[in-house]
């Protein structure tokens, strides 16, 4: 194998010079690093698009009464905000990480299916355009705007809706195809392209997290695609899957949607949970605690996530045995999750910690995600859920899960790996400022929403009774600080990408372990052409 190394390296350098340049480079690229960069850039742009939408919503909710928009437009904004954030910001960010990191971490030269990889990315921009186009069309008097049913597409409201629903259905189809292709690619890569000696039980935890996510996507996305296709048939082709008057069942849609929707939460979270142990271990300078326990917990969470979906609609009513089953199965997710928390905190125990920005975000993630997990435990309780459900309590809960678990997790990853990708160190000062502003304003935004929910404010209302005014005003102030703080992040990333900042060595962080830190920073365009041996 060693004899081949020199020849291949020379070939790689030579090969690198023949890339098309300009836009064609990005359109035709099959390189996992280029594609990863495109995914992450797309995600960042859509993060701001979704963010602007919700700031408009929060501005409307600053005071009781209708100030800036009519309820129809409000309903469009909340639904598209969620679809954009979930499908176009969080999922592509995780896929971007996978593209950049999995080959580097398992010692593979690229992803297993590079052309599929390229196609998977280039399906995203058209899907995002489809999703948001109805806003623009409405300005020209075509249709009545984007989907106004919330991101859940609940029938029969979605059967009633305008062309925005059709656009959203096709957009979800395309996003689904893209995600399934990405997932198949990741599964194939992890199973077949690991460096010699890297057994499954030596696989980095980030890859394990993604592997479970990929399986969940392949299992559940076709169900979503089927559900929205049935919806499309009901809308235009005279079927009655969800129309009660024709013998259909509106609750069937909820079952189908949440069979996808609940695992989706873990689809968004597992890559981040996989990333946490790496960051913990690096900044505590100590080996991960309970590697196997974490792997088994990922698998357990993945399996459990497929069998608890109905807790998303306890209030729709179901037989008592079903209520009890979904209540207890949901509660049982707390056990593998507790294993993860235990392992992360045990990793910190008696380490030698430093608190660079990625570590700060990781710690912020653990604490705030803890709140999401614990409120999730009480939400599982059917009788109490009757009060929490459809209220701002739930809104606060899932933002604690998906903003801190998802977005702050992604930011942890960006700060952790960006120096590796660009060869430049980001500004630590701005990173810390970004962290503190984010954490404080996040809590300012969402902590009051728990109390709003308890007091009885339903979600998705454009206007509210007077007793909810004070908390809403606080929440809006928090949201604007939170939104604008993210510009610091964008600036920091941009500075790194354009080569500002200190140059970093191969092992960017003192305590970092793993194959990716053996490569130079930034890694060569073609890396691991000869696979390393893992002992």
């Amino acid at each position, binding site marked *: 194998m060693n004899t081949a190394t020199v020849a291949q390296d020379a070939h790689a350098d030579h090969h690198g010079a023949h890339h098309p340049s300009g836009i064609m480079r990005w359109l035709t690229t099959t390189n996992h690093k280029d594609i990863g960069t495109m995914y992450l850039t797309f995600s960042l742009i859509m993060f701001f698009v979704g963010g602007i939408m919700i700031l408009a919503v929060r501005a409307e909710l600053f005071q009781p009464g209708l100030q800036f928009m009519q309820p*129809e437009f409000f309903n469009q904004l909340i639904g598209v905000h969620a679809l954009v954030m979930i499908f176009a910001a969080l999922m592509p960010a995780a896929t971007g990480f996978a593209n950049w990191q999995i080959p580097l971490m398992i010692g593979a030269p690229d992803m297993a299916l590079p052309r599929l990889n390229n196609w998977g990315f280039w399906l995203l921009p058209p899907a995002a355009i489809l999703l948001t186009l109805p806003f623009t069309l409405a300005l020209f008097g075509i249709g009545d705007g984007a989907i106004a049913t*919330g991101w859940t597409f*609940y029938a029969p409201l979605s059967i009633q809706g305008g062309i925005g629903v059709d656009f959203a259905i096709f957009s979800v189809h395309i996003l689904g195809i893209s995600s399934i292709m990405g997932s198949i690619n990741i599964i194939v890569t992890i199973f077949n392209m690991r460096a010699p000696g890297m057994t499954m039980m030596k696989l980095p935890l980030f890859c394990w997290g993604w592997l479970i996510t990929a399986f969940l996507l392949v299992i559940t996305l076709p169900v979503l695609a089927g559900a929205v296709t049935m919806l499309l048939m009901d809308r235009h082709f005279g079927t009655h899957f969800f129309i009660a008057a024709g013998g259909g069942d509106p609750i069937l849609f909820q079952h189908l949607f949440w069979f996808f929707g609940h695992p989706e939460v873990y689809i968004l979270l597992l890559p981040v949970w996989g990333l946490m142990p790496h960051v913990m271990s690096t900044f*505590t300078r100590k080996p991960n605690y309970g590697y196997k326990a974490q792997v088994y917990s990922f698998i357990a969470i993945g399996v459990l996530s497929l069998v608890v979906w109905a807790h998303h609609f306890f209030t729709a009513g179901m037989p008592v045995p079903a209520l009890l089953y979904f209540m207890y199965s949901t509660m049982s997710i707390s056990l593998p999750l507790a294993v993860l928390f235990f392992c992360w905190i045990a990793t910190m125990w008696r380490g030698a910690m430093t608190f660079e920005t990625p570590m700060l975000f990781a710690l912020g993630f653990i604490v705030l995600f803890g709140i999401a997990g614990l409120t999730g435990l*009480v939400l599982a309780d059917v*009788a109490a859920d009757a009060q929490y459900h*459809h209220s701002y309590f739930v809104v606060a809960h899932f933002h604690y899960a998906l903003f801190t678990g998802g977005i702050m997790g992604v930011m942890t990853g960006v700060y952790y790996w960006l120096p590796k990708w660009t060869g430049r160190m980001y500004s630590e000062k701005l990173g810390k400022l970004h962290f503190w502003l984010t954490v404080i304003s996040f809590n300012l935004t969402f902590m009051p929403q728990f109390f709003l929910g308890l007091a*009885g404010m*339903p979600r998705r209302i454009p*206007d509210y009774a007077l007793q909810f005014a004070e908390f809403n005003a606080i929440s809006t102030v928090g949201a604007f600080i939170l939104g604008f703080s993210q510009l610091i992040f964008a600036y920091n990333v941009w500075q790194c990408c354009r080569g500002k900042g200190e140059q970093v060595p191969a092992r960017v962080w003192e305590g970092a372990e793993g194959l990716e830190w053996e490569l130079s920073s930034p890694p060569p365009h073609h890396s691991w052409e000869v696979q390393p041996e893992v002992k």
Partner: protein
Amino acid sequence: MTQREPSRHAHSGRRMMPLGLQGGRFGRGTLLAALLAPFLALCPLPLLAAYSWNFPEPATPLARDTLHMHNQFMIIITVLFVVVFAIMIYSMVKHRKSLGVEPAKFSGPTGKLQWFWVLVPFAILLFIDFILMGIPAFHAVIDMEDTQTKADMVLRVTGMQWKWQYEYPDSGIKYISTSTTPKEQVNNQAEKGEHYLLEVDNPVVLPVGKKVRVLITSTDVIHTWWVPQFGVKRDAIPGFLREVWVKIEKPGIYRGQCAELCGKDHGFMPVVVQGVTEPEYAAWVEKKKAEQSSASAGVDKAWTKAELIAKGKEVYMTNCAACHQPDGKGLPPTFPALAGSKVVNTPLLSADGKVVKDSHVDRVLNGKAGTAMQAFKTTLSDVDLAAVITFERNSFGNTQGDLIQPALIKALR
């Protein structure tokens, strides 16, 4: 009729207890709120009085149990939170590189004692999940779902865009309840009233101390009937009957609203329930019955056009104006205009006196599938239907000039 308002509104001034320390047996409030106390202590007290930190005061046994359970659970999760993160924060303070700590090398439990300490937290969590929280939760579910044992009466609730219909099968009373908050208040052209967005024309009236079985359904999309003080929330699903039960403990007015996104006016679909004593309830039933029989007496009378138009305008404003707008211009393309509408300006009936498909009468009676236009024959009376059809044909610049009698509507049904 005595109308006492159990204070849902902390800012009404009667309940000035901050930090969720509300009175009653379960006045512990949430520890979550207590955690915030140091920050809030910096605020002046009158400011705090405007905030509500927990469920509103329960008005039914179910809501009382739910609040009790919620408080217990909040204490449990707060203790878990504090213990777990105290350990983490201790570690963050003590185990830093800057203190010259040499990192340990362990990567899992070693030895029997460590395994014991690793497994203890999970035993505790199992206990919390399935015993400490699991058992009360089990009983609460059984209690919540037992709608039929010793039920005294039935209330039927039907959600429709964007109002509620209430029906008392025992006494044959049936009416629609819509929001009365004026548009000017919503659009900030008038000062908002005390019960802004939580006020209706015809509240549900229920006797206190009686177990009411509430059957819930919908005619169009999914709605959710929710009164926070009752501890019940259940989706209204077209084609399905769902049920909850309510036993109001003391007279008063209880306010809630629709909780499932149901289209444009989802936020303007309040639920108001008035709990009254039994004699008051009996009197109300008699009064309502008399009203209804006088209304149905009008069916067989020959109405003049002017009478129908005057009545029709009222019906239009309550039932149609939300979508088609008070000026009949609608909100195209979702909600079409009635002014100059092709549908409105069709001949009233066919030559042999039948309803023509897709004509004005057909649309009002039977609705249009797949849109928010519902079949009004299920919710409006013969008089209301005749009046609103006549009104629409002779308003907003429509000049059909004809009218339809309630008796004919009755025959056409």
